């Protein structure tokens, strides 16, 4: 039997923008996914603080949500974002990786509903949370 996690990892990491951000898929299956984004000076939003730009956090969360949808047992294959909302709780700590965790908590024939969090090493308060709806498509 082929390793589903390995196939998913190769699939996600083959996305050109995922590669550009250095995204690594760490966990996937049953509608849940976890992706890490290493700290990178190119992604900084304010050079005085070294804090990662919110847009990069958004991109990591969006990728993670898409992966969670595709990994859901009822998902036939592909997906695309319909809408995604992000709340930014605090600045990510400079120098630390950002870990995105997404859960596809409900799926219908046409729509998948997802929520996600982005954490750094401080596990007490997320950097950001997200909630969105995704399309359900065949491959």
């Amino acid at each position: 039997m082929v390793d589903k996690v390995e196939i998913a990892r190769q699939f996600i990491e083959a996305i050109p923008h995922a590669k550009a951000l250095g995204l690594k898929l760490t966990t996937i299956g049953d509608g849940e996914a976890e992706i890490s984004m290493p700290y990178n000076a190119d992604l900084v939003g304010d050079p005085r603080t070294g804090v990662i730009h919110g847009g990069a956090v958004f991109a990591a969360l969006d990728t993670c949500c898409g992966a969670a949808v595709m990994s859901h047992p009822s998902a036939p294959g592909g997906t695309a974002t319909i809408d995604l909302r992000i709340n930014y709780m605090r600045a990510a700590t400079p120098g630390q990786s950002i870990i995105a965790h997404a859960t596809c908590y409900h799926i219908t024939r046409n729509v998948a509903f997802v929520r996600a969090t982005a954490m750094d090493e401080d596990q007490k308060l997320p950097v950001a949370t997200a909630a969105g709806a995704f399309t359900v498509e065949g491959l």
Partner: protein
Amino acid sequence: MARPRPEPMQVVKQRRDAALKAIVDGVPYIRFLNITFDRRGDELTGVLNFDDKLIGNPLLPALHGGVTAAFLEVTAVITLSWEHFFPRIESGEIDPEELFNADAVRFPKTVDFTVDYLRSGLPRDAYARAFVSRSGRRYASVRVEAWQDNHARPIAQATGHFLMPQPKVESE
């Protein structure tokens, strides 16, 4: 009675373009995505200059949804900052070259950002324009849209709330 003579056009343009360049060039992530801004008077249009690394779906191919969101957010923050700083740059209170050295100059912080994806982004340049719906002392609400070939067929739209930079409280 007579109004003061207007500044020569080159002086005005040079000052405004230098200010915009200082804001945009100072942010590594904006360079990473290769976003630039066209300025006509005080109106800004964000330009996402296409590159293969912005692709999210290699099969279609299509822009990464995260790139579209980031492009919208960058355009919203820069437009909001521009409108916020513009009067102080025009009055000479802020030297554009010193924007990132000045401790007093802070940028708006995103509180939340909601993106609607309307069409898949084609592998080519995209444009975005932001509208500041309300800018109060503490919070601002911004609407932003992105399009490619046809402005009437936007690829995405978003709204966001931002915390405005607070002036430093003078300690007695």
